């Protein structure tokens, strides 16, 4: 069995090749896929988030770590699915209609995936009906909306309202984030939570999932 501590280090250091190689070797040696996620990938991304919060890491370093985490997760995910292991939660994420900015959304998506969530990333410029379709099809319990512009953040309210109209509002928790947003705005549009940063988004997602279960 390879030293899985090297996987944790590779994710933190952003070394995707080592992360993939150690994961592959561990699986071949009989390691449990879920143990790799919960024992190494989640703690590694928690550490990445901690370093980001205290200005040791910045966006480039976060993206490097996310790439390394994903390289490992791509090997592990099919095995998790095969064993029927349930993720911490299932989240549909996207940048709202009219907005093509995605770096904040990508960071949140990576941190959620690294936090043990299954992430369905719809990309940018996502219309309300696409969020609804994806949430219904995947049986998601969380929807995460991102916006960078004051002119596009109004689509968040439209999207929240659309979930209400579609009769799905009680089935999902909706969290919002982005530079122009405030807790006050999140409350006003009827969102369930507002995350100020990628790391706080993970804590919020865990809280919302726990509250719903």
């Amino acid at each position, binding site marked *: 069995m390879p030293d899985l501590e090297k996987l944790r280090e590779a994710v933190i250091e*952003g070394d995707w090749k080592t992360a993939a190689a150690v994961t592959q070797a561990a699986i071949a040696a009989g390691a449990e896929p879920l143990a790799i996620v919960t024992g190494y990938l989640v703690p590694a991304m928690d550490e990445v988030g901690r370093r980001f919060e205290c*200005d040791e*890491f*910045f*966006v*480039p*370093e976060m*993206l*490097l770590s996310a*790439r390394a985490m994903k390289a490992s997760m791509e090997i592990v995910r099919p095995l998790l699915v095969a064993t029927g292991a349930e993720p911490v939660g299932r989240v549909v994420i996207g940048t709202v209609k*009219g*907005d*093509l*900015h*995605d*770096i904040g959304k*990508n960071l949140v998506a990576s941190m959620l995936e690294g936090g043990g969530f299954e992430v369905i990333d719809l*990309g*940018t*410029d996502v219309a309300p009906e696409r969020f609804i379709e994806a949430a219904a099809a995947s049986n998601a319990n969380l929807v995460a909306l991102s916006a960078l*512009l*004051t*002119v*596009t953040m109004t689509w968040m309210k439209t999207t929240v309202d659309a979930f209400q109209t579609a009769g799905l509002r009680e089935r999902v928790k909706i969290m919002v984030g982005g*530079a*122009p947003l*405030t807790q*006050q705005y999140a409350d006003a549009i009827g969102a369930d939570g507002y995350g100020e940063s990628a790391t706080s988004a993970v804590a919020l997602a865990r809280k919302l999932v726990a509250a719903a279960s």
Partner: protein
Amino acid sequence: MTGKERILAKLRGEPTDSLPLMPITMMFAADLAGARYRDYARDHRVLADAQVAVADRFGFDYVSAISDPAREASDLGATVEWFDDQPPAIVESRALLDEKSRLAVLRLPDLSAAGRMRDRVEAVRLLAERSGATRIVEGWVEGPCAMSADLRGLNTLMLDFFDDPPFVEALFDFTVRMEVEFARAQVEAGATLIGVGDAAASLVGPKLYTQYVLPCEQRLIAAIRAFGVPARLHICGNTRRIVEGMGQTGADIIDLDFPTPLGHARHAMRESQVLLGNIDPVRELRDGTPASVKAALAECYRQAGAAYICGAGCEAPRGTPHVNMEAMARFARSRS
């Protein structure tokens, strides 16, 4: 004093009759003029009308040709999505330089040919004709990090810093050479100040900023100043960890977004460095009251000291109440 005299005196460290007033307005200006933003960004005549109208209405000391970050990228052939009434956006999933090898064959745009860069030059020319005697006329260019992100894709560029440093250096060099020529054309058309917007630079930490971004910003700003006009550096976002480097760029005005307290910047820079900003555009300028706007500006001024120009941290958002913008103007005029 005219607005132009006021700003230039402040930049020389001389006394002024009141604080210069230079908030960034784009959608706010277009809305005031009753123009769709699509037209504002495409037609220099619409932009100039709106800029003069907003400066007249609120007593701004300058007018600006800033509109969106996609002008240079458009002329280079990048895919840009247009919206009816909001700024155009570069489509990152189809980035012009998704293949790095394309950089070697990329040519600087011809600024004499019709295009979006030419349209900005014409906006500057019109603004200079109509307002240049009494106000500063601000041209605008993208900074090296922002422009590189526009061409390569922001997510990819962030990884390139580690994956392929020579490529990043070559890309930054291309963007600086292009923006120097763009700035030159705007100065020749009558710009009396050039703004440099380098939004993506706030995403990198001090190490990458110092290694890659700062030398290129210094090169660009030195070239602008060699054309005989001052430079304003604006970086959107949280710049607390790079603000010391921003103070070394040579920019005459350091224009800070709201997450960086002006006191923090003042501590990191020389006493005479002019700071601009930086009340929260959304939570304060748009959602606050005239009294809270005044209080927030007073705190900015207190932290910045005398070398200070009034403004918000970033663009005045659409929907900003006119009474709040009037409160900003009153504050500027009431202090010297």
